[in-house]
């Protein structure tokens, strides 16, 4: 077989490098990647359509479950749009608590990314240590908001839980420990030679390409574009907090690592300012169940980049249209550019470098297939349907099914 034509290898949708389903078709010559094409949509669950069938309060929890890592970004973005349409002015303390939880989420998301990046380049020890330190911030989130991941702290018109002084103390201690852990990781990333070899010069994205391909968040900032929604279009309490927008001129995965770690340090200083400046007062305001006619575009600086929600209300309890554009959807365009004439070994770290969150990107369509009116497929009918599906393909599970059913029904 002459080796002229390229070998086409599929990466994904199930692949150890990709934590979530997306598929790249890579054509390889030897170890060099010559072309890459992306296919998304595997994680599509129809959330935008489902939002139109639920009330605003129920939507809150549906939107929050778009993504496991940046759940607070989506729920805050959605709630801000709804409050803007309804003209609700939420109390100052609620804005501060939202910012606090947003920054805590940025810390746990960036630490998680650092570990995954380490794993992608075979540095499992870094994964183990970063994820051990991440537990500190996860415990803080669990004790302040009631859950480690889907915090559910937002409600229309404010927040559901207050931060008492004893929790403030815990947060300050945790931020202190995390700060010098991050300093250690920064010194590690800037001097550990195997890490630097694997990260620098990989996934190059020049400033013009980043602008043209619409990259957002740390990917854009690592190519020198100083764009941060918290600074350009301040929301929640960011207007009266001072922090720096971290940019870097490396334009490669190494630059993105430094930008993310710089942002971690900024988050610690933001949290300290919030704990100091948080005003007293109520944490929520009475809000109507029916939102008047109107539309709003709200933007949020999620850990991965600019997250944008568009909500249109038609005066009823249910939104007329909810559009979610997650940051990864903007960054995914740049991946094929970054992959050009790279080694195959760089593919996982280049994909991981934009910190893809495909559950955000594919917001899904029909969640439940109902027959006749609006009821869900019951568990039994789903089982029968799958038995039929297999029978069409010549495999009969009916006896096995009978045995399983008896065991369940007897108990």
């Amino acid at each position: 077989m002459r080796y002229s034509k390229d070998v086409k290898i599929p990466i994904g949708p199930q692949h150890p490098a990709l934590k979530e389903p997306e598929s790249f078709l890579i054509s390889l010559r030897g170890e060099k990647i010559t072309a890459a094409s992306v296919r998304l949509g595997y994680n599509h669950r129809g959330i935008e359509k489902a939002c139109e069938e639920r009330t605003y309060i129920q939507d809150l929890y549906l939107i929050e479950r778009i993504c496991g890592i940046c759940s607070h970004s989506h729920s805050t973005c959605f709630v801000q749009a709804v409050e803007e349409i309804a003209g609700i002015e939420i109390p100052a303390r609620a804005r501060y608590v939202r910012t606090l939880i947003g920054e805590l989420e940025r810390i746990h998301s960036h630490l998680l990314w650092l570990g995954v990046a380490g794993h992608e380049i075979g540095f499992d020890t870094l994964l183990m240590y970063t994820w051990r330190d991440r537990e500190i911030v996860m415990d803080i989130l669990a004790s302040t908001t009631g859950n480690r991941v889907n915090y559910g702290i937002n409600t229309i018109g404010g927040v559901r839980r207050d931060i008492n002084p004893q929790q403030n103390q815990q947060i300050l201690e945790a931020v202190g420990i995390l700060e010098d852990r991050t300093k250690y990781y920064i010194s590690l990333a800037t001097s550990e030679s195997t890490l630097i070899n694997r990260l620098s010069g990989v996934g190059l994205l020049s400033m013009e390409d980043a602008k043209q391909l619409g990259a957002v968040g740390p990917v854009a900032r690592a190519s020198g574009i100083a764009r941060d929604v918290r600074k350009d279009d301040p929301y929640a309490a960011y207007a009266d907090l001072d922090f720096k927008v971290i940019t870097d001129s490396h334009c490669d995965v190494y630059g993105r690592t430094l930008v993310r770690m710089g942002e971690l340090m900024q988050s610690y200083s933001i949290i300290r300012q919030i704990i100091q400046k948080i005003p007293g007062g109520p944490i929520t305001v009475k809000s109507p169940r029916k939102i008047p006619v109107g539309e709003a575009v709200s933007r949020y600086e999620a850990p991965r980049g600019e997250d944008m929600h568009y909500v249109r209300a038609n005066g009823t309890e249910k939104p007329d249209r909810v559009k979610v554009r997650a940051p990864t959807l903007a960054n995914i365009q740049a991946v094929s550019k970054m992959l050009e004439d790279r080694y195959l070994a760089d593919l996982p770290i280049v994909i991981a470098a934009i910190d893809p969150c495909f559950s955000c990107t594919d917001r899904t369509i029909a969640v439940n297939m109902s027959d006749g009116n609006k009821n869900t497929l019951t568990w039994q009918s789903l089982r029968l349907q799958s038995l039929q599906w297999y029978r069409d393909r010549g495999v009969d599970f009916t006896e096995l099914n009978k045995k399983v059913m008896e065991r369940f029904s007897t108990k």
Partner: protein
Amino acid sequence: MTEEEKIKQELEEKFGCLKDKVVIKRERRIFADVPIEKFDEIFAFTVKQMHFDAISAITGMDSGDLFTVMYHLNKEGRIVLNLTISVNKNNPSIKSVIPYFASADIYEREITDLLGIQVEGLPAGNRYPLPDGWPTNEHPLRKDWKASQSKKEVRNALL
């Protein structure tokens, strides 16, 4: 005279048809209804002369009798200008904005898949976001499309 008002005034001077169609909802948010025939000209003007250099998203909506497509442009990440055009439902087709923004490609594929709006100038490529087995005439985000009444192939495509 804030920056938003300057933009609004500049738009209204340049294009008579936008006379009172440009609305400033709040700081840094401008909404504008654009007639479809003048859309290309206005879009080129905002992107080239007024330096709205990034497109955040393209939202497609089914508003009862016609489709509305909204282009969210922003200027240095600060001011968001939303251009809205309406397309009639029988043969909905719009022009692609890929010449201005390469990243609009995936947003336009999403509209074609979910709402069935044809986009001229969109190069062939992978479908997004629906699975390949999904029948081509089923567009889930249309108001009349209910999960329950979908035909058998849709269900098979999903199973």
